[in-house]
């Protein structure tokens, strides 16, 4: 098996994650789809590290994880705050950006 398959898988997962962001309305699910996209890219990083024989890809994945963790913490806090005031976790309900 070629290592490329990992990359294809990564691309596929990334795409599915993106589709999830676009389709799902529950903010938490949207958020999980974003996590999926991040994880998919991590897989690509790890695979690249293996392909190139260098540890840097793994470090990138590591950093991504940290950033993702931060993002989850803040993002979920935001969701909770919104939910507290709007009683809804639907991303469509919070549309204050519209004029």
């Amino acid at each position, binding site marked *: 098996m070629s290592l490329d398959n990992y990359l294809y898988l990564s691309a596929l997962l990334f795409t599915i994650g993106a589709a999830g962001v*676009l*389709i799902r*309305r529950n903010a938490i699910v949207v958020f999980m789809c974003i996590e999926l996209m991040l994880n998919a890219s991590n897989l690509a990083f790890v695979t690249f590290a293996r392909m190139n024989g260098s540890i840097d890809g793994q470090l990138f994945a590591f950093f991504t994880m940290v950033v993702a963790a931060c993002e989850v913490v803040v993002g979920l806090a935001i969701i909770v705050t919104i939910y507290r005031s709007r009683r809804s976790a639907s*991303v*469509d309900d919070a*549309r204050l950006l*519209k004029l």
Partner: protein
Amino acid sequence: MNGTSQMLVYLIAIPLFSATVLLLGSRALDKVGHIIGTLASTAAFVVGLLEFFAMLGRAPENRAVTQPLFTWIEVGNFNVGATLLLDQLSICFVLLITGVGTLIHIYSIAYMSHDKDRRRFFAFLNLFIAAMLLLVLGDSYLSLYVGWEGVGLASYLLIGFWNQKPAYATAAKKAFVANRVGDVGLSLAVMIAFVQFGSVSFSGVAEGVEAGKASSLALNCLGAALLLAAVGKSAQFPLQAWLGDAMAGPTPVSALIHAATMVTAGVYLISRSHFVFDVASVAQLLVVIVGAITLLFGAIIGMAKDDIKKALAASTMSQIGYMILATGLGPVGYAFAMMHLLTHGFFKAGMFLGAGSVMHGMNDEVDMRKYGALRKYMPVTFITFGLGYLAIIGVPPFAGFYSKDKIIEIALDAGGAKGIILGSITLLGAAITAFYMSRVMLMTFFGSKRWEADAHPHESPALMTIPMVILAIGSISAGFIFNLGDRFINFLNPVFHSDHSGHGEKEHLLPPIVVSALALTAVAIGVSIAIAKYGRGKSIPAVAPADVSVWTKVARRDLLQDDLNEALFMRPGQELTKALAIVDEKVIDGAVRGVGSLTLDVASGVRRTQTGFVRSYALWVIVGAVGILATIAVMSL
């Protein structure tokens, strides 16, 4: 080389300083303002006299003196010094300005005694004297320009002295603007002179002309530009319309500025630029034409005016036409023009002061139809005015006879058809002058009383009559003195280089004695018609009759000059202004604001894509990603 004199600057500085003091001074100066002003003018006159005698003490070719003051403007080779020049030509003017000016100052003390702004009036008069002296003393066209506009300003201020009346303020504005049109000519003249000769001083230009630096076209343009300037300042055709309205000013102003001095500045300019006109034949011809037209123009208007000051103003216009015409006749004419200018200065100033005296006695009434039989009530005024009258119509041996007769003479001598035409015009002018001046005399001092009910005519105080008497003496004697042995001509000869001192030797069209006879005949005809029409026993209606011929109506409307100006310049100008205002508002600013509103429109269109749904935004991100990836894919194909 010319000598220098350190005193010239005082001629200008004294009245200027006095004007400044009077303008800046407080109300405390009100009581002595008129005295300060008069003293300043007198002091300038004394300086002028000293200079005059100093001049007479020098050899004729060394009589001109200069006084360099400071470098005024120096940029590259454009170098204009503030230098004063006093030569035979200027001294005539200096004496006229300061002399007549002082008399009129004295007269004004009484004339303006009831005006609470008398101090300001004297300040303006002094300002005028200073500016006018600068005009005639400047040694370059640019220095002259300063005086030129300075007198324009003074004239504006004095015409509009009672500018609380809108009509007077308008008259002042009209005078200034008409003068400005003339100033364009002066500006252009300076520019042409600089480009052609690299100098704007009189001597520099004269040398340049002599050295043949300029083409004939350039010289004619220069001449035409100078003529335009002269036309504006001297109220010649076609810029004559302002002079009649300028009579809105107090009468002493009319006497000083709009009769004796400022309006003759055009004659001065042309005479001063004789070296240009001598070689610019087309421009010279234009000068003659302008003079001839104005001569008749003014005379015709004069016949129709009932306002004594306007009649005199028309007469001034006409007399200056004579002078301009004379200057256009070449070297032979300048001196005669100057002579007429000086004599005219005496008698016209005298008559204006007389008119002022009449008005003073008649509650400021100016309509001659409401005068009549004043000779018994105002004897001094009557006699001085009458002497001026005799002088202006050219009765020998009064001043006007000598000067006007000479002009008729040289007009006839202009040669060929030109001579005959000009001669006839001048003779006709003389006849008309005689007619309308007689009319003024008859309507004012003779005939029956047609006064308004509250009129109590009385002779004016001595402060007013004495200047009139002095001017009347001048009217009687000046011509005779000037002409004695061609004294005046010879005096001016070094300036004009006209070797015509023995002008009698030249071939004449008609012998001088015949010319004089013709002129006197013309005068006699004019006077007789006037007597026939306005003389004893003829009733003069108190209101101008309306059922008169079209020609009279036209003449009363100043030969339609205002209507013409309005139709040709004011109306189109106003329309253009209005149109431009709309263009500015709608087109140019509209374009600018259009850009703004276009931006807003585009923005509100684009705004529709902002649904507020975060998922739509995410969709756009994906679309963008697709775009980028597709680009990469296409590029890597």
